[in-house]
């Protein structure tokens, strides 16, 4: 457990956050499909509130063990990043997503997400 953020999951999908000062790390694993999208939506809302409350500078997502993501989840990420983009500069935090080079879909999907918010999202891996 990290502040208001807690690990959540359903069968086949898990989100594990960790807060360290002004840095938040989150590991996503499994398959984020229609049964997991609402969980992701709620988590990202909480994550954003937590990041603002903690005056976080960075949020690092580890998606190396994320094996599938549907288009609704893609929208969830874009909605979150859009909220960050419109923040005043002092409140804005940077997001990085670590991808798995052996899962080629990740570069296509997260690449599309990154194009929607290049000023706040960097892809690593």
């Amino acid at each position, binding site marked *: 457990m990290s502040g208001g953020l807690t690990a959540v999951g359903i069968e086949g999908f898990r989100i594990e956050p960790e807060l360290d000062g002004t840095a938040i790390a989150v590991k996503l694993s499994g398959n984020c499909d229609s049964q997991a999208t609402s969980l992701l939506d709620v988590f990202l809302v909480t994550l954003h509130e937590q990041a603002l409350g903690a005056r976080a500078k960075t949020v690092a997502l580890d998606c190396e063990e994320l094996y599938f993501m*549907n288009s609704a989840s893609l929208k969830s990420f874009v909605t979150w990043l859009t909220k960050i983009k419109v923040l005043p500069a002092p409140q804005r935090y940077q997001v990085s997503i670590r991808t798995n080079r052996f899962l080629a879909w990740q570069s296509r999907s997260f690449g599309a997400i990154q194009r929607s918010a290049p000023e706040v999202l960097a892809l690593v891996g």
Partner: protein
Amino acid sequence: MGEQRGRTDLDGVGRGPPEATARHRPVDRLVASMAMVWREPPSKRVPSMVRELLSASYEGFVEPDELQRIVMVAHEMLENLAKYASDGQVTFGVELHEAHGEGGGEGGGELVARLRSSNVATAEHVREAEGILARLGSAAHPVTAYDELIAESTQRTGSRLGLARIRVEGEMALEGIVEGARITLVAERRIARRRHP
């Protein structure tokens, strides 16, 4: 209402005659196929189950990257069926054929992956699908239309990104055929046969 088509093409996909469509493009022998029919919309669990079935069934035929595309496209089509199909028969199928012509043929390196879904939907959802296909087809590059749809997605209920994702991330030719209230989608791509199963 007569049949209407909306089609987006992709350079290098299907090297048949110019007038060929994804539905009629010549292909040779069937390598593998999977077909499903429902009398009512499939449950929300079906896309995940079919994704796993496809992964296990086709991993010996195609390279991992191509399999990820096929699985993604199948998932998006099936989620659309689960969300938008109304009364009437619902069908979904995946076929792998040996590609016709250059690079294809028995022992050749290429296959054609063809995914097809068909369902009855409300007039609103049919119009919406036609609109997205038209945007993808008329954009200078489909990626541009995809990026615009992604940006717009935050302003609407539901993502409405599935078709664009099939076209752009799947890099598949995508054809929509509307016959009355029934919409049939055909996605197709030439893929490399797996060299070391």
